[in-house]
């Protein structure tokens, strides 16, 4: 356990760097929203739970604990980290030259590829399919290094996936709502189908009762996290549509949307219509 504490260093560093940046921003008179800071701290804690501590050690013996770690590291932590908008904070807090370099990196072709929803979803959901349908899971349970690499992949792929779908950070070339919605539905299905397959055919060495509990946790837990992502994606659609409505209204040079659009009274409804 003592040696494993070294794994806490990246998580701690991530938290400290983020907190320093928020303090810096506060001193410059541009306070950073506190709820984003809370998301970042919670996100790093969830991610860290997959690498060391009670859950990580239980995950070696129990499939249910393994699945809980997968949900926490691969889904909950990325969602929280994305909501913390670290790139926006970095662009604000960094001085001009490094900020420019960062934004050039974000616009580079390689960033474009990895932040594309389809690529990110394949990395994320394809990664878990590969984990459970190849001997990788078995290897991961025996070899600590493989275990950490798999967990690291979960965090990074989960982050790219979530950011590609509902990112708050600036993302040049983010595709439209329909593509992102389709990717979200298909990847959610990929996650759920894998959960049912693990229910039907437990992994070697996993007792059926444990496999069933773990698979159901994967299915419903995945649903819960994806539900939040769906709400955030639809809310973004609602905001963007509203902006378009307003800009159309102002381009036409009339009243704002609210009063310009037809009132309900002129609708061709009949007496019972408003019931």
């Amino acid at each position, binding site marked *: 356990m003592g040696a494993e504490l070294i794994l806490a260093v990246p998580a701690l560093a991530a938290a400290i760097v983020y907190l320093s940046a928020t303090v810096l921003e506060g001193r410059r008179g541009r306070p950073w929203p506190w709820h984003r800071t809370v998301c970042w701290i919670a996100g790093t804690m969830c991610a860290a739970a997959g690498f060391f501590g009670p859950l990580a050690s239980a995950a070696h013996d129990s499939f249910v604990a393994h699945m809980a770690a997968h949900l926490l590291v691969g889904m909950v932590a990325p969602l929280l980290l994305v909501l913390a908008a670290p790139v926006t904070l970095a662009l604000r807090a960094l001085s001009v030259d490094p900020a420019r370099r960062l934004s050039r990196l974000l616009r580079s072709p390689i960033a474009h590829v990895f932040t594309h929803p389809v690529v990110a979803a394949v990395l994320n959901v394809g990664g878990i399919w590969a984990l459970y349908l190849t001997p990788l899971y078995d290897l991961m349970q025996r070899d600590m290094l493989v275990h950490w690499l798999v967990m690291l992949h979960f965090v990074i792929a989960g982050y790219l996936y979530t950011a590609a779908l509902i990112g708050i950070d600036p993302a040049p070339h983010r595709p439209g709502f329909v593509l992102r*919605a389709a990717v*979200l*539905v*298909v990847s*959610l*299905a*990929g996650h*759920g*189908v894998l959960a*049912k*397959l693990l*229910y*039907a055919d437990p992994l070697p060495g996993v007792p059926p009762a444990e496999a*069933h509990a773990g698979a*159901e946790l994967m*299915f419903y837990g995945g*649903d819960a996290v*994806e*539900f939040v992502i*769906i*709400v955030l994606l*639809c*809310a973004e*659609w*609602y905001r963007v*549509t*509203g902006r378009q*409505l307003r800009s*159309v209204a102002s381009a036409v040079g009339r009243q704002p*949307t*609210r009063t310009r*659009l*037809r*009132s*309900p009274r002129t*609708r*061709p*409804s*009949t007496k*019972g*219509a*408003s*019931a």
Partner: protein
Amino acid sequence: MSRASNHPGTNPLRYRSYWGGFLLGIAMMAAIDEIVFHQILAWHHFYDDATPRIALLSDGLLHAAELFVFVFGFFLMLDARRRRSFWAAASWAAFVTGLGLFQLWDGVIDHKVLRLHQVRYGVDLLPYDFAWNAAGALLLATGIIWTATLARRAQSAQIAQTS
């Protein structure tokens, strides 16, 4: 913008509130199925050993789409309200249509064609299947007739207004 987006006219199918209600109807029946029959009564099973593998894929896609539709339906309703084109009766007609469509789809495609799982286990299925699908068909027919009635009434109201 165009007249059409602000004045959807007399056809309920051109109202965002209609499609919002439709999506919510589908999602509501899916939620009833999941909560009442899977979780509370435990008549349905999470996984049935007789399920063909390919059916798992279609079920997974359908389930994911339901979850999406459940949320998007609400936002469509909000959008209709924001555009001042909310038509409550059309929403309800569509809601009932959605309820029926999902119930019938579940009863015919999921239970019988794909054989994902059955209504209940260890009983004679015939009365259960009959009740399930009859309820679905009744809801669907009600929704469609309601929609048609609304369209006709709106049309005659408009003719009365213009003449």
